[in-house]
Every structure is written in C-alpha cells, then in structure tokens.
C-alpha cells in the first residue's frame, strides 16, 4: 500500500514539474467545448440539449490527450522495467499510476465542467448531476485508457493508434454519463444511469489493471 501511495506521490510530483502538459489537456477541454456553440449557433434551448453530450465528448478527447504520456516516459527511461521487477505486485503500481493520471487529468475536468455547463445554460440541478456523472465516469476513462496506452507502448504511431483502440470502448461511459444529465433535464431522474456508471466503474477497477499489467509485460519482453 505504501508503494501505491509512493507512486501516486511520484507521478503527482512529476506532473507538478511538467505543469504545461496538465494545463494543455485542460485548455483543450475548454476550447473544444466552447467551439460547439460557435459551430451550432447561440440558441440556448438547443445548447441545453446538446450540452451533456458536448461536455462528455470533450472530456473523452481531453483524457485521450494525456494517455500517450501515461507510460511512455517511464518506458523510455527504464523506470517501467524497475516497476515490473519491484517486489510490489505490478498490478498495484499500475493502479497507482492510473489513480495519479485521474487526479491530474480527470479530476480537473470534473471541477471545470460546471463552468462549461453554465456556458451551455444548464441549471444548478443539472450541473450537480453532470459533476457526479463525471466523478464516476472520468476514473473509468482513465482505467480503460490505460489498457490502450499499455498496448500501444513503443509501437509505431502509438499516439494515434491509442485513440482508435480506446474510443470505441468509451461508448458505454459516454452513453450513461451524458444520459444521466439528459434524463435529469427531461425529469426522468438520473439514478439509473448513475448506478450503471458506478457498476461499470467497479467492473473496470477489477479488470483494467489486470489487462494493463499484462499489456505492459508484453511490451517489455
């Protein structure tokens, strides 16, 4: 457990020393979401309808942006080898790295989402549901993304390839995440969507580190 905390601390420390990467992903999120009204038009009823989907798709893309940097630096400087050879099980270390990735890319998105929601004229209740849905959904994005990042490690054109592998797998998260906000707006209640999102998260917490670990071992062979 200490090792997990240590790797989270290390990755956060590294993120602090390379602030620009974290900030780039955040501004990307804001800019993409702000482009939609410019492309679609300022009519607030329409914007309210598309808001959950737009914010979620932007969150997917922003998460994707950070994925290439999840394991690549550790792979390049040999730290990944040492992680594999550490007495601590690799699965735990990988979970720690994914947690750190979420704290640096997912959590800021959750905190920024209400601001974007206001741009799209969402009311307070919908903003709350949006935050809860993102809180459940962004760890899911980091977990699934880690599998793709590990599979494309050291592969030609890995950065583009990872989006091809991961985006189709993001579909359920997108559907339930955006759906939660939509059904709240239409008065149906977001409970069903949110609990399904939580179930998916539980499933991913269980399986994704395992698949990521296997993929990392293969990339080091």
């Amino acid at each position, binding site marked *: 457990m200490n090792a997990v905390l240590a790797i989270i601390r*290390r990755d956060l420390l590294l993120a602090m020393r390379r602030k620009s990467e974290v900030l780039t992903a955040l501004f990307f999120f804001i800019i993409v979401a702000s482009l939609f009204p410019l492309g679609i038009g300022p009519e607030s009823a329409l914007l309210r309808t598309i808001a959950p989907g737009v914010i979620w798709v932007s969150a997917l893309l922003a998460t994707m942006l950070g994925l290439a940097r999840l394991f690549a630096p550790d792979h390049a400087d*040999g730290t990944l080898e040492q992680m594999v*050879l*550490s*007495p601590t099980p690799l699965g735990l270390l990988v979970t720690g790295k994914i947690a750190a990735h979420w704290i640096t890319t997912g959590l800021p998105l959750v905190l920024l989402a209400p601001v974007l929601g206001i741009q799209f004229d969402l009311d307070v209740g919908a903003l709350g549901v949006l935050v809860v849905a993102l809180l459940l959904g962004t760890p899911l994005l980091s977990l699934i993304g880690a599998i793709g990042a590990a599979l494309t490690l050291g592969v030609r054109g890995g950065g583009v390839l990872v989006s091809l592998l991961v985006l189709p797998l993001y579909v359920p998260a997108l559907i339930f995440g955006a759906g939660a906000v939509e059904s709240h707006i239409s008065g149906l209640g977001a409970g069903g969507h949110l609990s399904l999102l939580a179930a998916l998260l539980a499933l991913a917490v269980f399986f994704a580190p395992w698949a990521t670990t296997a993929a990392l071992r293969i990339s*080091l*062979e």
Partner: protein
Amino acid sequence: MLTATGLSCVRGERRLFAGLDLAVGPGEWLHVQGENGAGKTSLLRILATLSPPAEGEVRWQGEPVTVLAEDYRRAMLFLGHHGAVKEELTPLENLTLAAQLDGTTLDEANALSALMRFGLRGREDLAVRFLSAGQKRRVLLARLAVRKATLWILDEPFTALDVKAVDMLSGLIESHLAAGGMAILTSHQSMPLPNGRILSL
C-alpha cells in the same frame, strides 16, 4: 545460488543462443561476453524475469524463479541500459522514491550519505536533468549502494563512467561479493575486477 539450464532465446526470426547453462554461487561473479547482437542483454533480461526464455529454466536457490516471483525480485537487482532515473526529480527524490516503490523505506540521512559517497554532494536538490551524464550514472550507483539485494544483474555498468567512478563501482561490487553477494555483468571492455568467470555468447 542462481542456476539456469538449457536456456534458449529467439528474437524475431533469429535464434540468439540455445542450450545455455550457467550457475553463480555466493561470492562469485559472471562476466557475460559477446559481440553486439549476440544476446547479452537478452540473456540478462531472461535472468531478471523481464522476458521468458524460449526454452529452459532459471532457478534461484533451487526453486524456479517463476514460482518464487516476488521473493526472487526482492533478492535481485537489475540495471538495464536506461538508468531508471527520473530527469525531473532531484537525486534525493529519485533515491527515496525508488526505495518506496520497492516496498522499503529509505530515510533521508541514509540517502544523503549514499549520494555523498558517490561525490554528489551539493547536487541533492538539483533536478537530474541538470546533471552531466557521468553524474547521472553516479545517482544509479548510489541506488545500488542502498538497495539490499543478493544478486546484482548489471548491463554495461561501466559505460559513461569516469576513472574515479569506475573505481567506486568496482569497489562496490567487490564488497558486495565479499559479503556473499553474486553478480552477473556484461561489458565490452575488460573488467577491473578479479576472479570473474567468463561466459561467451
């Protein structure tokens, strides 16, 4: 005691070596020699359990390393071509965090004394990326000194070291062997260490 029997290694379409046997006991060290591409690094990675052998088996204290898993990894230290040193972190942070990832703790006093021993005094708080190549290798040597492992597997440990650092490293390895440790090294040049057995690939 590390023993390997009938190891063979296939890379892509090429068979690098086959039917390789080796044994290293306490206080012994093995010098793996061979041309570029002969499979020195591949052999070391197999011994370190980073990649599985195409055929054959590696045993530690009589047990297969695949069964021992964590116990073997605790007893073994591997240094590859890349230093496993984070450029953005200071030498001090590198040492303490590496120890924590291994599940042990390293207090600041010990870490500092190890860094000083390798002539990194005054560099503790400078990010590694501002250090010279030789100084970066010294951070690694400090890591060797603080990590308690019986078996050292070192891939080209003497590259990019100045004369003084070479002496330090060979002294380090000698005292490791004297204390009953084992070492497996690869190197292009002749080793500044006595009594090594030679394995040619």
